[in-house]
């Protein structure tokens, strides 16, 4: 039985797969593809000893030469999350019709053919981290052995190298697509893969937390919330609470001024408050009220307001989502234990549908429960390169130093206050003026792809980006 327990391990790890053949219409074309589901073991570099059994679902297009066909490895974050959100929510051949940010779609959400699948552009491999999904450590290792920034990236490297070798994909153009914690994982992993001789073509960072020390929701307690302010602005604008309120089409350009304010006057006031409890100047408070919709007294009392305060106080009696502030529910939570409306409304459908999809559509059966979330996050070693909390921009910079043609694309949602878009922009700006590094923002939350309109825009942008990366 597979288990997400930190101390669990497999005595033996059979590499059993289920292979099924499928067909779908995409525009005027028909995509014939193969789904391969099951386990493949990551082997220790050097000794070849199996260390972890990875569970994956691969969708590969039929009738094309694997040697030149791009391949993309997808993974969610957490750490401890299974890759169910990207698998059934984003660019696979099927997706759940969530109708986000509306909460009126019937649940459990229907699994539908995905008109925005990336399968016409790249083969897709959705892989679960150790301890999540059905991935598990192999004895004498235990799941906990891989619960750390470095150990996790190393074992992902070993899985990807094994996958490429086992499937004859060594010469395929290779891409990584990680979300949330999957972003910093991608940075560390890209550095390790490049060093090991696996040349990547591109890395997509979906709502990444590249530097934990630059996000006041997860960083050291004295971290400025400057990176959050533009996301509060986008939220206020969505609910017609900004003064004056920009029209939806004007929001992206309106946010330019908010960025300038956030990194300038606001950041100075916030840092002064953190250092010496200095109250913010009235001009800063006025601008915060007009930008964020939160009342003046809240900002006067503490200008460094994080996501929790904002989403629980913006609208009395209402909770806004952390992943997507556009999603709201009446606030019936005990103080301090507020749910995330944008998370709770989707979770059950994903749990139910992944189980069903694996067995009914992909003919994969396993008596163990597919684990959406382990408790790895509680036991994680966040230390990396001398810092208590990871800053993975140097890892990404190291990957680029080893492969200066590497393309990097970050995609973010304006209404995500878990990993704010402006924080990501600030993080990637550290790489300097590199034309291979881009940031694109969309209306939406952490999982921008759940928004039907944004997913359509993303598909078009990603198809173009893949094309330019392959020509790079």
């Amino acid at each position, binding site marked *: 039985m597979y288990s997400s327990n930190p101390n669990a391990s497999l005595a033996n790890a059979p590499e059993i797969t289920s292979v099924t053949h499928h067909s779908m219409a995409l525009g005027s074309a028909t995509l014939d593809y193969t789904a391969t589901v099951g386990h493949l073991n990551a082997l220790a570099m050097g000794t070849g000893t199996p260390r972890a059994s990875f569970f994956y679902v691969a969708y590969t297009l039929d009738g094309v030469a694997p040697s030149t066909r791009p391949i993309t490895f997808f993974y969610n974050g957490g750490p401890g999350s299974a890759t169910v959100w990207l698998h059934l929510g984003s660019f696979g051949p099927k997706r759940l019709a969530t109708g986000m940010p509306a909460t009126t779609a019937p649940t459990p959400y229907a699994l539908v053919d995905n008109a925005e699948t990336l399968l016409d552009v790249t083969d897709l491999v959705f892989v679960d981290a150790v301890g999540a999904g059905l991935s598990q450590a192999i004895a004498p290792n235990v799941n906990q052995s891989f619960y750390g920034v470095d150990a996790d990236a190393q074992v992902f490297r070993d899985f990807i190298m094994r996958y490429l070798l086992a499937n004859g994909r060594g010469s395929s153009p290779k891409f990584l697509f990680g979300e949330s914690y999957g972003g910093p994982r991608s940075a560390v992993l890209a550095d390790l893969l490049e060093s090991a001789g696996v040349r990547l073509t591109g890395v997509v960072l979906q709502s990444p*937390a590249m530097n*934990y020390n630059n996000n006041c929701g*997860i960083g050291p307690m004295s971290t400025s919330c400057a990176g959050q302010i533009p996301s509060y602005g986008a939220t206020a604008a969505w609910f017609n609470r900004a003064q004056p309120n920009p029209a939806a089409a004007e929001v992206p350009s309106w946010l330019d001024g908010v960025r300038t304010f956030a990194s300038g006057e606001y950041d100075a006031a916030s840092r002064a408050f953190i250092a010496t409890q200095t109250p913010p100047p009235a001009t800063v408070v006025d601008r915060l009220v007009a930008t964020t919709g939160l009342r003046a007294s809240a900002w006067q009392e503490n200008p*460094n307001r994080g996501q929790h305060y904002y989403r629980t106080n913006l609208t009395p009696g209402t909770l806004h989502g952390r992943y997507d502030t556009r999603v709201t529910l009446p606030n019936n939570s005990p103080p301090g234990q507020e749910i995330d409306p944008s998370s*709770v409304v989707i979770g059950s459908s994903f749990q139910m549908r992944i189980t069903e999809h694996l067995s009914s559509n992909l003919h994969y059966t396993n008596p163990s429960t597919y*684990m959406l979330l382990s408790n790895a*996050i509680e036991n994680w070693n966040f230390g990396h390169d001398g810092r208590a909390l990871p*800053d993975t921009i140097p890892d990404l910079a190291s990957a680029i*130093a080893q492969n200066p043609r590497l393309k990097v694309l970050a995609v973010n949602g304006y209404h995500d206050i878990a990993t704010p878009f402006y924080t990501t922009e600030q993080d990637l700006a550290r790489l300097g003026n590199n034309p291979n590094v881009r940031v694109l923002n969309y209306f939406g939350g952490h999982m921008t792809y759940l928004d039907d309109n944004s997913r359509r825009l993303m598909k078009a942008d990603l198809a173009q980006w893949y094309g330019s990366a392959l020509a790079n």
Partner: protein
Amino acid sequence: MGAPLRTELIRRLVAIALAAGAATAAWGQGAASQVPMLDPWVPPEVREKATVQGSPTSGEALRVEVERKLRARFEAAAGRGGTLSREQARSAGLGAIARDFEAIDQRQSGRIGFEDYKAFLRSRGAAL
């Protein structure tokens, strides 16, 4: 600041997630089978011990940090100030160096030092 979530709460929520996975028969329209997603998240005791260490590196400071990373990896195989043969690079897992060895080894000596590697990366466009 972040939600004052406690370990016990996480445990409880994870337990709910486990129950939701095991008992799809209990599926309902209510919030009883919530699957929580907290990421990214850091346990409070870890956050409280962490400190802000100056400004995030960029420009020359980031370049120095990258060089330190690459040098540390090279020297883990070669020893401090040491050199590598292609075979040593390969057996140490430095596949990229083994792959590009001839181009790195401009002197055709069969051994390369970190400065040879750095010069090679620079010649390929690295901002090192």
